[in-house]
């Protein structure tokens, strides 16, 4: 049997993983929504470019993404330096950096899901809402958003799951500092790097899977509720 008593460091990693995944999911939601909306409905010159950019983290090996993050968001990176000076937001070697990496890695998944459901929303309903006096943004809030809730939830869960599994970009960007940036995934990875670490890896893997499955089930329930309300199920 597998020993399920965890060391304090492992507990920390679990908490951190959850925190990172939740924050990554939550903070990437608004921009993902915006980008998905732009891609689904917008007609502007740089659309293909934006679309490509969004998919980059998927296309690139995570190490490269991590490297890119380091160049941009590191202490000396243009964005990182700016953020540190202006709002005091530091990513390097912080759990915030892990969250950023996870968010970026999950971003294409979230955008795709949301975009698909926005595209599936019946625009005639939006027209109807407009004739009832709702301005475009309010139409979006009151009609489009609730109707694409299932896709939104799907996107969030993909992002969460990805965040739980992601370590390539994370470890490259913010290293593997216990208590700060060592997530479950990087802890698991460490175990796989030493002979005889399989049991430990398996143990943590089970935890990670259990956490993610719970989130998955929760989201399925929510999505089903949402879908039932709009009559799709």
């Amino acid at each position, binding site marked *: 049997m597998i020993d399920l008593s965890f060391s304090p460091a492992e507990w920390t990693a679990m908490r951190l993983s959850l925190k990172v995944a939740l924050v990554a999911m939550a903070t990437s939601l608004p921009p993902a929504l915006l980008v998905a909306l732009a891609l689904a409905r917008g007609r502007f010159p740089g659309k293909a470019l934006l679309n490509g950019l969004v998919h980059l983290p998927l296309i690139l090996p995570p190490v490269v993404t991590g490297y890119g993050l380091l160049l941009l968001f590191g202490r000396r990176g243009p964005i990182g330096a700016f953020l540190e000076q202006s709002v005091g937001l530091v990513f390097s070697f912080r759990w915030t950096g892990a969250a950023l990496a996870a968010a970026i890695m999950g971003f294409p998944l979230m955008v795709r899901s949301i975009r698909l459901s926005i595209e599936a929303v019946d625009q*005639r*309903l939006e*027209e*109807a*809402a*407009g*004739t*009832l*006096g*709702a*301005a*475009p943004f*309010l*139409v979006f809030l*009151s*009609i489009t958003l*609730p*109707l694409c809730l299932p896709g939104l939830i799907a996107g969030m869960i993909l992002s969460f799951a990805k965040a739980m599994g992601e370590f390539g970009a994370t470890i490259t960007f913010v290293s593997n500092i216990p208590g700060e940036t060592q997530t479950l995934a990087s802890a698991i990875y460490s175990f796989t790097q030493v002979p005889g670490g399989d049991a430990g890896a398996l143990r943590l893997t089970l935890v990670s899977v259990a956490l993610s499955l719970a989130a998955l089930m929760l989201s399925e329930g929510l999505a089903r509720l949402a879908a039932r*309300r*709009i*009559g799709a199920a």
Partner: protein
Amino acid sequence: MSLDVRLKTRLGTVVLDVDFSAGDGVTALFGPSGAGKTSVLRAIAGLTTPRDGLIRLGGETLLDTAHGLSVAPHRRGFGVVFQEARLFPHLSVRRNLRFGSFFNKAKTTRAEFDHIVALLGIGPLLSRAPRHLSGGERQRVAIGRALLSAPRLLLMDEPLAALDEARRAEILPYLERLRDETRIPILYVSHSVAEVSRLADKVVLIDNGHVVGAGPAAETLSGASLLHGAPLRERGVVLEGRIATAQDEEGVTAVELGPTTRLRLAQEGLLPGSRVRLRIAARDVMLALKPVEGISALNSLPMRIVALHPRENRTMDVVLAGQEGLQLLAQITRVSAKALALSEGMEVQALIKSVALDR
């Protein structure tokens, strides 16, 4: 308030090119399937922008393509009842109905809400989701939703088509009242001549994307286009009159068409002195050579035959002229015409049953 509409645009292979205006009250858009009625409504609502067009309501310009002006749909404040109900699936019936009032300054009162709900018979549906509503229920909610958004103009696309006669008979008077009591112009698409002649002050006939006739309901629905184009049971005339200030001796409501011409009507509750429109279908007019005694028809009008048009199914359209400019159309069989030896210029009596008068 007057709505002026000029549109020119392509719809696939059809060219839509209309120019009409609609005043206070109800203006009916009338025309065959595919004529372009819905397209006109969409343009007025701002849901499509025509290639070329000018739309004004009162002094306000809503669309002027020449100057690149187009007011967004939500700023037009026009209530629309779509041909398909378009209820919001994620909101309950109540929330669907209340939707418009969130976005409008002019809130509808609780009493108005209750009144419209009761009128449309959707009280029991208020907490339901739209998903499983029946076709007619859905359409009624859609009507209510548009009415409750406090619109400056109502655009209604066959709102009653999915309803049974009884329900229609309940809602029509309400629309009449809306027309009479508020100053909201209503643009009304319908296939029912009876509905249109009853509601509409003005009729715009559309065919194949073009206005083929427009004017006061009385003229247009009796006019040449209807006379020659419409099928059998749609032909007839629409007359304007005034409810007699005093009921006549037997307590029957009468409509004064002119100083001496009266038609007696089987309908109660009409306000003395108010103006009404009566539709007299050609099929409901019987002709007699001289006044007839001992017959249930209450109306017998002396008329002169102006013209005789042989029509389909061995029938004959008889165009009649009477006193004070009164015009009628009678449809009889050719056999009868022959038996009565009808000819142009002949004097006859037009017999019309009171109960047959479309109101």
